[in-house]
Structure formats: C-alpha cells, structure tokens
C-alpha cells in the first residue's frame, strides 16, 4: 500500500471520528423532531457520495467506450459498487427518519421514488457485470451505464409530474428552511468525512479491480505461451 493512500485513510478515519462527535454531541437537538433529526448528518452526505459515484461511473464508462482503457472500466466498476452501497444507506436511513417524523416508513414521492429507481438501475448494472462472460463484459457494462445515466433525469421528470398531479398529504416539513449555524457546521464536517471515505473505498476497489485485470491478462498470456510450445 502506498504511503500517501495510507495517510489518506488515517486522515479519513480521524475526520469520521470528529464529524461523528460534531453530529451526535456538538449539534443541538432539533426542536420538533428530536434526536432522530441527527440521521440527516448521515443521510444527506450518503446521497451526495452516491450521486458523485454514479456520475464518475458515467464518465468512466464513456471514457472506456472511447479509448477502450481497462483502467477506466475498473474505475467504473469501483464507483458503481460504492455508489450502490451509499445509495442503500440513503434508502435505509430515510425510512428510519420518516417513520417518527412523517408517521410512515415510505411515501411514493418524487425524490424517494427516483432514488429507488436509481438504485434499481445500478443494481442491474452490477448484475450484468456479474453475469457477462469474458472480455466483452466491459463494453456491455459501459453501454448499460450510459443508458442508466441518460434515464435518471427522465425518471425524475416523469415521477415529479406523476406526484404533482396526485399530491400526497405527508409532504412538507423541509429541513432546509434556515439551518442553525452549528447544525450546518456539523453537516459540512460530515459531508467532508463521507466524501473522503467514499474516495477511500473507490480507490481500494479500483486497485483491486486493476490487480484482477492484471492477473487475468497474465493467465491469458501463460495459456498462449503454453499453446505455442
């Protein structure tokens, strides 16, 4: 492991500790929602990391289709996996917060539904990667990644229209209307810490994928040499 990467991991862990302290101890308790509001410090940063991951996945996939670079494909695979993990966190922490605040676990509101569909699209991407055979995996996966990314704004638009036609009564109570400075402070620290841990995970997964690629190439070479003899 490179020392720079190691140092980054240590820094990330320290940041995570500090931001958790900020979120759980320093930040004031929200008046109407109570302590459950603190989940916001994890929910929103996770959503941000998931979004960034899916965007990186799109860029890496497009670059792969253009240059056929195996490293770009490794980055696409890594970012999709990490993105799905953080998207799962978003989908789990959301209902935990919604149950006491809205009174229900789930509502088919535009943002919730879009997140769920986003999650479904990228899970199907991972399934395709798992089931595709041999060296064509990268191209097939990259093609699907482009489809998924193009689909997201269409999903959001259609579901927003669908739900504005039939408004659901549980909506309202946005937490963005005037955040306490101390809360904002804790939130920003968490955002930074989560971004760092997202980067850590992507880099680790990227290096692993590259190593796998190299082992596979070495195996192929060995088989070719054996055949020549």
């Amino acid at each position, binding site marked *: 492991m490179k020392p720079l990467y190691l140092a980054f991991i240590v820094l990330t862990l320290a940041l995570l500790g500090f931001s958790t302290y900020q979120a759980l101890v320093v930040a004031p308790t929200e008046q109407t929602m109570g302590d459950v509001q603190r989940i916001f410090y994890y929910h929103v940063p996770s959503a941000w990391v998931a979004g960034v991951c899916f965007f990186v996945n799109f860029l890496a996939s497009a670059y792969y289709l253009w240059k056929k670079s195996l490293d770009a494909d490794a980055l696409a695979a890594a970012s999709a996996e990490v993105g799905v993990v953080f998207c799962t966190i978003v989908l789990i922490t959301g209902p935990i917060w919604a149950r006491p605040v809205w009174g229900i676990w789930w509502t088919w509101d535009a943002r919730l539904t879009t997140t769920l569909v986003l999650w479904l699209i990228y899970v199907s991407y991972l399934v395709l990667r798992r*089931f595709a055979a041999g060296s064509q995996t990268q191209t097939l996966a990259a093609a699907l990644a482009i489809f998924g990314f193009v689909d997201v704004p269409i999903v959001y638009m259609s579901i927003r229209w669908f739900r504005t036609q039939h408004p659901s009564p549980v909506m309202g109570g946005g937490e963005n209307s005037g955040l306490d400075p101390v809360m904002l402070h804790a939130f920003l620290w968490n955002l930074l810490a989560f971004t760092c841990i997202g980067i850590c995970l992507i880099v680790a997964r990227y290096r692993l994928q590259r190593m796998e690629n190299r082992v596979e190439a070495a195996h192929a070479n060995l088989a070719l040499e054996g055949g020549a003899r």
Partner: protein
Amino acid sequence: MSLGPVTISTLVKDLRMEWRSKDAINSMLFFALLVVVIFSFAFNPTAEESRQIAGGLVWVAFLFAAVVALNQTWARELRNQVLDAYRVSPAPANALFLAKVIGNFLFVVILEALMAPLFVVFYQLRSVGPVWQLVAVALLGTWALVVNGTFFAALSIRTRSREIMLPLILFPISIPALLAMVDATTTILTGDGTPDFWLKMLLVYDVVFTLVCLLLFETVLNAE
C-alpha cells in the same frame, strides 16, 4: 452498403421466417392470454373500479409478452454464426438493429391489436376519452419498450443466463416509459384529465433512447 436496403432485406427475411414459423407471435399471444386470466383472479374484473387499474394491467401483460418475443430476437442469429458473418460484412450494424426493432415493433403491435378486444370483453372496458389517444399511447409506448428491449436483448444474449438477464436490465430503465404508458392509459380510460404530458414524455423517451441505441449498437455488436 447503405442503411435502407440492408434494413429492408433483413426485415423482410425476419418477417418471412416469422410468417412461416409463427413462433414469436404464438408464444406472445398465449402468454398474454394467460396473464389476462390470472389477473382476473386477483380482483373482480367487472367492477366499475377496475377501470382505474386497467391501464397498469394491460401494460404489464404486454410488457411480459414482449419480453418473450424479445428474447428470441437474436437467438436465431447465433446459430451458424450469423452474427459473426454480419460483423465481417460491410453492412452497417445499425441496419441490422433497425430491422430487428421494426420487426419486434410489428409483432408487439399485432399482439396488442389482437389482445385489445379480449381485454374489452373480459374486463368490460369502455373508454371515456378519445380512442385515437389510446392508439397513440400504444404506438409510442411499444416503440419505447421495443427499441430498448432489442438493444438489451443483444446485451443479454452474450451473458451466461440469457433469458433471465433481459428483464433484469430492461425493466429498471423502462420505468419512466411504463409510468407514462400506464398513467396515460388510465387517464384516457377514465376521462380524468388529459394525457398530453405523458404523450410528450413518451415521444422524448423514444427519441432519446433510439439515438442512444443507434450510437452504441455497433460497439456492442463488435464487443469481443
């Protein structure tokens, strides 16, 4: 070689094969019929409220039936290495793709035309809104399903579990199109509001994904 003649000759070949075997259309028809019958157990199909869910029901039946046909699209081209031969030929890849899409589109539209009277009879459907709008929704929606379905069938044919893979990757991407089709159909059937937004949505979806498919198909066909 140019796009038009190759597309037409491939399409004519596919249609002739389908006309002689009737594999795709027969399996789709029987499958859709089964779905209609099974759905009728889930709720009282003659109730007045059934019109509220008829849109979803019709499209789920057509979607599942279309997957049956889509899965067979490329299977016959794999035998005797037809796809490999196509790859080394100078014919444009998109001609092959367009021919397959148009072929599947015709099959599914024929299926819908044959099944629609059955739905009307079994579920006592009666449209409050204008019927031409239902036709527009059917044509735009079918194209949305078929253009992506044909493309994803070409992806899934190269994976280990061919038949299972197609719905797994097709359904998540198709969610906005399905939502538009279902809601537009329900709106027209109940006469409650106008489906204009959904028709525009479907048109945008069709244009965007047809372009993406045409841009990427050659890459996927040549993937090694």
